[in-house]
């Protein structure tokens, strides 16, 4: 039994008409001139569609054979069931690829999730302070612009006197700069490069300069330990990953968006608490200053839902208060009192002069 087929030898584009038959050693292709090409069965692969069978030899540049005669496909399937790629095999490949892809994505995602703090830390420690200052300036420009700052320089000067007490015990290469913002929301934050921003609302809640010192000591640690820079790198990393996945290059122009949303990790907060407490004690200030403000705010949190952003960005307040009280009790000195004889909090209405 023979079937007519067309044969290409993979060397030239010439077509050869052949008669195809199943031989003992392989598929036999008899050329019109009588010449014979034999394909060993193990060297053949192929596909079938609509009673057309396309066969080729395995290898980089195969020889090809097409048989469109009816009856050939059933005979081939009967004699060599595994030779043709069947639909079910294709589905198997699809499922395998899907499984591998899904697994690889999941593993990559988890690995990045776990490794991101360390990657951020490693990269952040390579970034020079001068770059951090540029970043911090951009953050301060966005979140504490000139127009929103406190108009009365005397208030900022008072806060800077407290900052000076702590600078000596937080010896680093950073030049700290402090801004007071005329905003009722109870908040304070640090930006990379040494920038610290205090909201008027937070100062109003303090009952002693030591409580302000506690906030400053904590924020200074965010700067020194580069938590902000690391948070930015994490955000950037996630953006790059997302951009890679969904194929969007526009994220680059959205860099400023990252600056506004700095989220510190929980371990960053704990570390800032502990080291901040240490620098309070090294400066011989009352360590309870750090604790008292948190207690006040915690008590008021119920009355002012949502208003106290400082707490909401610092979770587990009760645990923190307990841990810090324990550290504070270890102090074995008589604390210096800051700005004795000054009423606290100082009058802040002069902040808004000129804006009314």
């Amino acid at each position, binding site marked *: 039994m023979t079937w007519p087929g067309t044969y290409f030898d993979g060397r030239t584009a010439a077509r050869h008409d052949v008669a195809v038959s199943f031989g003992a050693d392989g598929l036999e292709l008899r050329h019109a001139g009588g010449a014979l090409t034999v394909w060993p069965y193990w060297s053949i692969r192929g596909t079938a569609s609509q009673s057309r069978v396309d066969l080729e030899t395995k290898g980089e540049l*195969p020889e090809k054979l097409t048989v469109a005669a009816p009856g050939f496909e059933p005979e081939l399937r009967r004699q060599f069931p595994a030779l043709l790629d069947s639909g079910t095999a294709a589905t198997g490949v*699809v499922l395998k690829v899907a499984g591998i892809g899904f697994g690889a994505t999941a593993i990559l995602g988890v690995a990045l999730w776990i490794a991101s703090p360390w990657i951020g830390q490693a990269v952040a420690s390579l970034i020079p302070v001068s770059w951090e200052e540029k970043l911090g300036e951009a953050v301060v420009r966005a979140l504490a612009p000139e127009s929103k700052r406190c108009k009365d320089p005397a208030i900022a000067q008072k806060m800077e006197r407290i900052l000076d007490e702590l600078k000596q015990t937080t010896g680093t290469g950073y030049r700290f700069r402090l801004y007071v913002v005329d905003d009722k929301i109870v908040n304070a934050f640090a930006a990379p490069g040494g920038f610290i921003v205090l909201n008027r609302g937070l100062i109003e809640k303090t009952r002693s300069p030591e409580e302000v010192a506690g906030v400053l000591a904590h924020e200074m640690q965010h700067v020194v330990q580069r938590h902000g820079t690391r948070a930015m790198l994490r955000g950037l990393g996630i953006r790059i990953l997302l951009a890679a996945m969904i194929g969007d290059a526009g994220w680059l122009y959205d860099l400023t968006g990252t600056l506004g949303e700095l989220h510190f990790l929980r371990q960053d907060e704990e570390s800032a608490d502990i080291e901040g407490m240490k620098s309070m004690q090294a400066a011989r200030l009352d360590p309870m200053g750090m604790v008292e403000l948190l207690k006040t705010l915690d008590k008021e949190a119920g009355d002012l839902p949502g208003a106290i952003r400082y707490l909401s960005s610092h979770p587990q307040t009760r645990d923190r208060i307990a841990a810090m009280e324990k550290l504070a009790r270890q102090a074995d000195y008589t604390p210096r009192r800051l700005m004795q004889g000054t009423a606290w909090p100082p009058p802040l209405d002069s902040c808004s002069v000129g804006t009314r």
Partner: protein
Amino acid sequence: MPFCTVCGDEYGAGASFCVRCGTAIANVPAASLPVESGTRRFRFHGTGGRFFTLYAVMILLSMVTASIYSFWGRTNIRRYIARETELDGERFDYHGTGLELLLGWLKAMGLLLALLLVVGIATVTLDEMAGQVAGTLLIYAAFLFLMPLAMVGAWRYRFSRTSYRGLRFSFRGKPAEFVRVYVAGALLSFLTLFLYTPIWQNNIRRFLCENTYYGSARFGYDGSGSALFGRWAVCWLLAVPTLGVSLVWFWVERFRFFWNHTTFQGARLRVDIHTPGMVWLYVSNFLLNIFTLFLAYPWTQVRLLRYVLEKMTLDGAVSYERIRQEALAAGAMGEGFGPWLESSGIDSGIGL
């Protein structure tokens, strides 16, 4: 008419070597090899139903694999299109793999990330204004050069993975040469308020055709920039009185121009499409997609391929026996830029 066996170029009677590639002609037993003349038709056998299955599988599996499967899905679609496309009674074939596409994409992404990192550092370290200006300029400059590199990369990859009658196609254009053609043309177009654009597009097309080989035989291109410029000028002069219809006419005309000036050995490609037919096809396809929420997309693709391919012929003398296998290796990195640079309008088979 004799043709060189190495590059497929035609040479005059009595020549002793091929002018284009320098092969000695005395070695070639030209007279003994048959030359077939005639009109060879293209046909497309694909069906919307099968296309739909391929697209559906690709989209569904891409969603659960963070789009990693899309590389395999795209490869399956390309293979299907090639295997359902017929010329002169024989089918094309596609040999690319999803893994190649994935690796090419990863390389392209790596390059892009490095570029963005440089830009980011420039923006942060320099002054606010200087940094932004430098960063923007750097991005534009990089994309001006990346675009042609990606196009060459995509052509190299696509042709090297496509075969017909058991022989591979190949694209042998030098990237640096194409960057010169592309960047010079882009700048000239800009400086001449786009008067130069049709000549630039013609140069790109010539570079593409004259560096494309089927086996050992090269394609040719004899479209002149001034001829295309003439059509382009007419189109713009009539743009206002025809309310922009002449722009559509030029778009179809350019399509015909590019194909009808493409030659192969002693034959020429012809595509017999006309503006009303193309406009009706695009408008009806657009409406079909809108009213079915793009469920009809596979069927509209088949309509497009069938319409164009069945109006396309290869007319003239071709000697298949003179064309030898000359396959080239090529990576898929250029393809990796596809999503950004749109160098892969080729997917429909129409862009080329």
